[in-house]
């Protein structure tokens, strides 16, 4: 165990991979208050939701999108009343650190020409939430048609970010939280929040939950103290 603990293991939290740093920090501050440290498992939201569907015994779930939460709610796997939207995020256009690209966000902005024949790295718009938000935003900004054929669809946001950081793609669209953590890229433009549905990370307690601390940790995450941790990592809170 990484920490001497008196009370044994804390509650088991299944969380979207993009929350890794922030949720780890939140769990640390919770543990510093004398609670046993929650056990955190990070993977794709889809994988975690299917594990929950299979009745794997866990306590909390933080999803990267509402749909998988809905999926679990429909199967009565969420403790009623425990679901809450607690984090928000923004999309940004990133370019390699050396690039001078910059965009003024208005409908029809010259995204395609800025690619210069290269590809736009995004999380897969057909499956990954970040990609779906990106498609929605670009469609509303009337540039989707022009870049649709020039996408590099990555498995997740971090992989899309890596494509830009490695110079394989000249531009990419990722979450603001990811962009601020990668020194090899710079933000070339903020996608207007109105251009897409709000990006929210819902949290809920699971019906399989049996850990006595589960509810307390959920409340901590939703408390001002908990939310402050996430704001440090660039998330917005509700």
């Amino acid at each position, binding site marked *: 165990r*990484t920490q001497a603990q008196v009370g044994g293991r804390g509650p088991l939290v299944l969380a979207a991979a993009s929350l890794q740093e922030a949720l780890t920090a939140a769990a640390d501050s919770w543990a510093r208050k004398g609670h046993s440290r929650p*056990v*955190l498992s990070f*993977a794709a939201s889809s*994988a975690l939701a299917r*594990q929950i569907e299979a*009745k794997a*015994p866990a306590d909390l779930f933080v999803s990267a999108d509402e749909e998988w939460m809905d999926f679990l709610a429909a199967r009565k796997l969420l403790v009623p009343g425990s679901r809450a939207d607690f984090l928000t995020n923004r999309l940004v256009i990133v370019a390699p650190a050396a690039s001078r690209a910059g965009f003024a966000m208005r409908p029809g902005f010259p995204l395609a020409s800025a690619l210069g024949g290269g590809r736009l790295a995004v999380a897969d718009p057909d499956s990954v939430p970040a990609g779906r938000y990106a498609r929605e935003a670009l469609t509303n900004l009337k540039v989707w048609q022009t870049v649709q054929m020039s996408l590099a669809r990555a498995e997740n946001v*971090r992989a899309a970010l890596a494509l830009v950081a490695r110079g394989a793609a000249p531009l990419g669209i990722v979450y603001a939280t990811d962009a601020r953590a990668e020194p090899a890229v710079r933000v070339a433009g903020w996608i207007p929040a109105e251009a897409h549905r709000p990006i929210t990370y819902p949290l809920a307690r699971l019906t399989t939950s049996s850990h006595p601390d589960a509810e307390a940790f959920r409340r901590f995450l939703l408390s001002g103290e908990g939310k402050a941790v996430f704001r440090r990592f660039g998330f917005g809170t509700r």
Partner: protein
Amino acid sequence: MTGEEWGIVLLSLQVSLAAMAGALPLAFVLAWVLARLQFPGKILLDGLVHLPLVLPPVVIGWLLLIAFAPEGPGGRLLALLGVSVLFRWTGAAIAAAVMALPLMVRAIRLSLEAVDPRLEAAARTLGAGPWQTFWTITLPLAAPGVLAGAVLGFARSLGEFGATITFVSNIPDETRTLPLAIYAALQLPGGDGAVWRLALMAVALSLAALVASEALTRASGSGRGGHVL
């Protein structure tokens, strides 16, 4: 290396060894059946064995999840035995074993097919029954394939990621093996240092396995061919 990283290495070793040891007997039986028997549907069995190779690992992980869910067939069986593999290292070992199985079967099958049946016949005339012949002649002569299968299985288990994270999630000290830790580090900006360190550990473990297998080969010195086959 931090203490946490050592823990991950030990867990990986435990999972991979268990997967290899658990899969080896099954792989041998399958290899033997495929090498020696002719029966209708043999190609289907062969196809089934190859399945974990052909399907993306996450699908295999998902199928395992369905099978071993408390209401799934495997889950009910294990529940009778009072065992649960969900979110447990034993589940990680199962995932690794399933993914490694096709590699092990192929290697063992190749060696079994190269065993000269005339030597087995000779053993029978010397008084060995079918089982004794198997243990004293067939198995030792197929040893190169068994060893190769074990090494391949161990290495493949060390690298197993997709089926594991899908089946048993990514739980520290329980299912977070080296590949999952590497994946997690890859997700972190500035995680490159940890990625390299963990990757090096994985490589070192596999090199150790290779050295051990070479030593075993040399010790057994299985003299192939030669007079009087």
